[in-house]
């Protein structure tokens, strides 16, 4: 409780409050622009947060994350193009409502559902993150090694794309993480004699490349889209009848969203999809889904905002990113020299309190933005791509260069823009690459520490119960689907014979 109080007191600092308001607005702009989402926004902002203190930096990234996810709904409803992929399911019912002249009602429902989902999940973050960190308090290197390995293996199961593709992308990320001086042995690896790679491949330019520039290249192949704004009446808060209609859905979706957020690597997009489907399955109005059912909007929006708080739990407590955007926040923390986990909360006492307070303010601002600003923000989407994308490109370059005034970082960002574009085109997840890169160094370091701890007898790793559990989960994540498939095949054959 004291932490919440100190967090709220920190808001008394006008600079911090101004920062939160400014980033909420910036995040909203990023969210309404189709093609730019929370992950891209956070990646583009990442280099500029490196000059801030770690708490402000995390506040900026988390606020961008929240507001961009929320704002995706505005464009989903008004122009039938999700501003972010997490709002894709919001289009299904939001746009039909808007066409019937009920855009105001749709936006009102989206705002309430988002804010509710967001508030509950930051409450959850505040309670669950320290608890999870306390569990990890007794973890030694072997447990951390097994846990991080499990985090990596979850890449095989993340949404879309085949498991093998995700594994290749993840392994590529881990492989990149080994470039530079090995921290445990002091040996240079894969630097090809260039001084520039001595410190390894930086997280930040890679993130800018795969999330910013790669998206720009993809957009350059689809130019001929025109966007039409639906005329709208004033946004209004949903009446009692509407609230009664959506309340169960909002509660269920908030739960689903928070839970999926906590799972490693799965974020707002999957959360909104699953919760939309669940809402349709349980609703008495299921036949109306897709024709402008407010329950559909509520399900999608409550879940995608709830996923944010959820995804930050494992990120801050264990250093395992709970979503793509959380991976960027983790990269920021690590670049700043902070190690997530129990020590983070112990050393940076106010850390969680301030993040909690910041997200609280951001979520309350959503109501103002959603009710008052939606038509203004929606206009931003009509900015032609020929102006928008060169701007994003320049922003990426300035960011990459600003990290340490190095041209090498610009080249890395550009190279990963091209690599990322090719990967996306062919169904390889750039998120896997990002998480592999961030977790790769950690896995190796913890393996080295564990083996040193056991004086070289590495099989001792399998004598620790907690580590063993994570190893089992790792195998399950990697081979679970194939195993059940195989078992089913065999039992079917037996029945047939």
């Amino acid at each position, binding site marked *: 409780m004291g932490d919440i109080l100190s967090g709220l007191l920190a808001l008394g600092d006008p600079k911090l409050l101004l920062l939160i308001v400014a980033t909420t607005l910036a995040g909203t702009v990023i969210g309404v622009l189709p093609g730019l989402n929370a992950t891209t926004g956070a990646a583009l902002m990442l280099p500029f947060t490196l000059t801030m203190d770690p708490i402000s930096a995390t506040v900026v990234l988390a606020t961008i994350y929240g507001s961009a996810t929320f704002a995706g709904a505005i464009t989903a409803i008004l122009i039938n193009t999700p501003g972010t992929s997490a709002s894709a399911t919001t289009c299904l019912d939001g746009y039909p409502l808007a066409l019937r002249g009920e855009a105001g009602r749709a936006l009102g429902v989206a705002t309430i559902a988002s804010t509710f989902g967001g508030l509950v999940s930051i409450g959850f973050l505040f309670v669950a993150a320290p608890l999870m960190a306390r569990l990890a308090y007794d973890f030694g290197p072997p447990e951390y090694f097994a846990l991080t390995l499990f985090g990596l293996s979850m890449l095989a199961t993340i949404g879309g794309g085949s498991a093998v593709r995700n*594994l290749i992308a993840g392994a*590529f990320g881990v492989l990149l993480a080994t470039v530079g001086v*090995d921290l445990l*042995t002091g040996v240079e690896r894969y630097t090809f004699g260039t001084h520039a790679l001595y410190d390894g491949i930086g997280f930040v330019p890679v993130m800018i490349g795969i999330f910013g520039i790669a998206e720009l290249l993809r957009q350059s192949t689809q*130019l001929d889209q025109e966007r039409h704004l639906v005329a709208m009446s004033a946004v209004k808060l949903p009446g009692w009848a509407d609230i009664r209609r959506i309340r169960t859905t909002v509660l269920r979706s908030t739960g689903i969203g928070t839970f999926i957020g906590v799972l490693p690597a799965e974020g707002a997009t999957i959360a909104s999809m699953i919760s939309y489907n669940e809402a349709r399955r349980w609703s008495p109005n299921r036949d109306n889904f897709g024709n402008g059912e407010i329950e559909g909007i509520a399900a999608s929006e409550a879940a995608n905002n709830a996923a944010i708080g959820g995804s930050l739990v494992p990120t801050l407590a264990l250093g395992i990113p709970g979503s793509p955007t959380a991976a960027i926040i983790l990269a920021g923390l690590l670049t700043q020299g902070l190690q997530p986990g129990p020590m983070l909360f112990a050393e940076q006492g106010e850390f969680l309190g301030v993040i909690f307070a910041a997200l609280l303010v951001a979520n309350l601002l959503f109501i103002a933005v959603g009710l008052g600003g939606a038509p203004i923000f929606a206009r931003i989407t009509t900015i032609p791509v020929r*102006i928008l994308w*060169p701007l994003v490109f320049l922003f990426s370059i300035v960011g990459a260069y600003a990290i340490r005034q190095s*041209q090498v970082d610009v080249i890395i960002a550009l190279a990963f823009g091209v690599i990322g574009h090719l990967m996306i*085109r062919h169904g390889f997840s750039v998120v896997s690459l990002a998480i592999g890169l961030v977790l790769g160094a950690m896995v190796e370091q913890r393996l*080295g520490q564990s083996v040193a701890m056991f004086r070289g007898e590495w099989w001792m790793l399998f004598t620790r119960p907690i580590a063993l559990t994570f190893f089992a989960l790792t195998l399950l994540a990697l081979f679970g689907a194939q195993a059940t498939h195989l078992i089913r095949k065999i039992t079917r054959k037996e029945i047939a014979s």
Partner: protein
Amino acid sequence: MSDRIFGGIGLMLALLYVWRATIIPDSFMSDAVGPRAFPYGIAAVMALSSLWFLFKPDPEPEWPRAGRLAEIGLAALVMIAYAQLLPEIGFVIATAFAAAYLTWRLGSTLLQSAIIGVSTSLGIYVIFHLVLGLSLARGPLGI
């Protein structure tokens, strides 16, 4: 076919990676795992999943038409040239050209793109350098 190509690239990458790992020197510090074991492990994962891909490719994806591919290639070339020229001619000039090119390829007329290029470049310079105090690459004009 394209999955097989990617599988091949993955396998090559894994092999190359292992080859470079074998020539990593030993450490002067004694270390139980050593600097090579971990790279071998990742290379194995990479090679196995690439092999899987070579033998069981997914259905053929759609490749962009040659024109689009050339367009992407050109955009990438401009970006590389941009990165190379950045320290030579400075941020403002290099950026104005790069932004103008991209704007033109994204569908503006030549005059429009020149105006947009110069103004975005100057705008970013003002915001990031003069207001936020970030250092941007300096050119012969001193900006």
